[in-house]
């Protein structure tokens, strides 16, 4: 039974992947992509990677989907032109054959690997005690490989600068995106009033349990950012002008606090990003709490887009 469900998920995934590539209409392809992301999350659940599943659903399916839909909406006018640029049949055939061949070779390589794959899981389990947290993923992300997580938080800021850099010069410092005017009695405004209270609770819950159970700041922040975006799109909230000093400070506060805790580790634990005995969990929570608002703002503003209106 389980095997049949898994096989079904795998086949559907392949089908959706092919659909996404083959679909000529951009919106159709995006729908395929979002469905693919959600189904992939299910596949991760089946593989018992619940943390990965949450991330895939929130970021791979949800956030990326929203970004793609907004991009497609802006590109509506050029859709016909880009469809006309279709490469010749021999090119497409060659691409399909070679990409298919490479995929088959990869599948062979993976399937032929004998025995269970070597893993660091036992080592994580043996050392997790020192971190005070119970979720091994959190231990990896915020203790053993904290540097990667710090840098991933910072790369989002780079991306935000990149998004802002697309603003016209005279609107620099202004508010991102278009001003949304939704019908105050319409379905969008209704949803934007109904969903955020629930979404905020779910987002904070997923963030808070991350220390001990599947969840964490990136997934929680994505849900919170989505609620913010919903309120923006319904015209109930507006994105702040990007020149505001408080906004800039709030955006860097998370990574800055992360670096500060890391630097304190040099003094109190003998290593950058080291945690002293007994204090580890408290410091990890400090980092997560500091990162959450910065991540929500960064993700929300990346989705809101480049400044398009004056600050007033």
């Amino acid at each position, binding site marked *: 039974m389980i095997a049949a469900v898994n096989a079904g998920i795998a086949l559907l995934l392949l089908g959706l992947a092919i659909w996404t590539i083959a679909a000529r209409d951009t919106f159709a392809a995006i729908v395929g992509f979002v469905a693919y992301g959600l189904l992939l999350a299910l596949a991760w659940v089946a593989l018992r990677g619940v943390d990965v599943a949450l991330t895939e659903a929130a970021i791979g399916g949800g956030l990326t989907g929203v970004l793609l839909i907004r991009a497609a909406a802006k590109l509506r006018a050029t859709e016909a032109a880009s469809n006309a640029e279709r490469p010749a049949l021999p090119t497409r055939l060659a691409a399909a054959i070679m990409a298919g061949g490479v995929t088959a070779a990869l599948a062979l390589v993976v399937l032929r*690997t004998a025995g269970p*794959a070597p893993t660091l899981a036992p080592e994580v389990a043996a050392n997790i005690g020192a971190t005070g947290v119970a979720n091994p993923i959190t231990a990896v992300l915020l203790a053993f490989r904290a540097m990667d997580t710090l840098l991933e938080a910072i790369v989002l800021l780079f991306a935000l600068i990149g998004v*802002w*850099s697309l603003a016209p010069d005279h609107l620099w410092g202004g508010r991102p995106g278009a001003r949304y005017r939704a019908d105050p009695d319409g379905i969008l405004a209704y949803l934007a009033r109904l969903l955020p209270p629930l979404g905020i609770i779910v987002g904070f819950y997923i963030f808070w349990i991350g220390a001990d159970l599947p969840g964490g700041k990136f997934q929680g922040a994505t849900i919170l950012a989505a609620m913010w975006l919903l309120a923006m799109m319904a015209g109930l909230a507006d994105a702040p002008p990007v020149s505001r000093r408080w906004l800039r*400070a709030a955006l860097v506060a998370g990574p800055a606090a992360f670096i500060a805790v890391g630097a304190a580790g040099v003094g109190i634990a003998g290593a950058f990003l080291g*945690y002293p005995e007994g204090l580890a969990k408290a410091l990890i929570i400090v980092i997560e709490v500091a990162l959450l608002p910065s991540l929500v703002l960064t993700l929300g503003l990346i989705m809101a887009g480049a400044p398009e209106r004056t600050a007033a």
Partner: protein
Amino acid sequence: MTTTPGGLLLVLAVLAPIVGMLIAFTLGGRNAQRIASVTIVIGLGIAIAIAAAWAQTGATVVYLLGGWSPPLGIALRADGLSVVMMLAVAVVILGIGVYARADFATPAGVPEARAPFVFWTLLLAIWGALNLVFVSGDLFTLYVALELLTFAAVPLVSLDGRAETLRAALRYVLYALLGSMFYLLGVVLVYGAYGTLDIGLLAARVHAEPATLAAAAFMTVGLLAKTALFPLHLWLPPAHAGAPPAASAVLSGLVIKGSWFLAVRLWFDVLPGVVTLASAQLLGVLGAAAILAGNVVALRQARLKLLVAYSTVAQIGYLFLMFPLAFDAGAAALERGGALAGGTLQAISHASAKAAMFMAAGLIYRAVGHDRIAELAGVGRALPLSVLTFALAGLALMGLPPSGAYAAKKLLLDAAEASGQWWWASVMDVGGLLTAAYVVLVLVHALRPATEPREARAHVSHRAQIAALALALCSLLLGFAALGPAPLDAMPKPSLDFGALASALLVLLGGAVLAAGLGLRLPPLPSRGVLTAPLAPVRRATVAVGATFVRVDAALRQWPVAGLALIVAAIGFGAALLA
């Protein structure tokens, strides 16, 4: 493995620019530039301190992040290679920082402007990312470093906001992300096969099995796409030629060295015994194709910035010639030695020379209002310092003594001779001649007297000219570094004997002949008719050859072809690694 003295400096090398970027981001406006200036000085100090810590023992500087040792934790490591690269990058960033003060000053009357804010924050971001590439000892952290580098670099392409440069930036980010995915796929395969991503541990565990070979092929091709090695270069010419000059200097001089360095790490430190003779030769072949095609197409460009960008396409080729030369057929493994030293020297020499060249081209553009090579007459008189900079950077790129590239070439030629691979030596010679050709072509145009007196259209910052000249001199005089202490003690000592001088003159002369044959628009000569009439058919033939190169290059830079090239390259490397 434990943290060594000075290890904390490695953390500082990565985080100092990033913290500077965070502060610049928060304070914004004119403060962004001030903070960038302070950070550049601090960062240079850190690079020197790391070099000192390394030179004391000559052993790799190590830092265990969080006190966790690999495979569970992440180690930062700096060996001689990392130290040299960090020093070179710090010096080039300093030069670019001084140069960019004129172009990216926040205009009076506004608290903050878009281009300066983006430039100064991302300059620091790129620096932090590059230093992470140089010191990271973990394949996944290196992936993060590549992402940091790409996301920091792409917005610099479209700083001026024109549709054309936005298109170039989009090309760059899409192709670079394809490269990232290829690399990441390889990382996944490696972890699945060996249960660690630490470079040191992997080196002891890897062996040639299907998963390793597939990973090696994907990672290599991904990195080549990000480095824009021919024929995976569709994004480079428009991106590097369209960016503002200071940004072009960063992109062409520094950013592509990040993924190149990672390829070196991968081949020399992770997979030295796994790579095969055929795969090393394949890298060399692509390098040779890059040198030939990049240089010829550079000669056929009408605009100076595109010429310089194509020169980068060619110079990237040199950076991959060392792979076949470092392959020891007896041991069937890559050996760290003269070839690696030569390749590294080539990289830092190109970093400063190409930055200087883009800066000089930018100053010329600013002063004249265009960069059409055929209409540069009189520039030599109007902007003597910038034309001199262009000339010196050109000499450095050609590999004339005492430039760093000369020492690099000598190391590579020695390696070619020692391993009996004469063909790479001839590739280098032809490349040097072609480089000389376009440098001579540009100089001949720029040094012609103007028909009417030329007025500089815009003021050109004196400080910017000096910064560009200083970087060109750095590259040209790099050969003298061999006289100093380590870490460049493998370099040949510079000598200025008669033979070297004569061969330098020959290169210039040969370059002039090639320029006359292949150059796009030749300056009018007084005696043109008498002297050149018999040569006209020859010129027609050579021009046809040049035009063929241009057509092939244009075809290769189409999206469908470039996409196919990526898959073909992956299959090719897979096959070569099996051979």
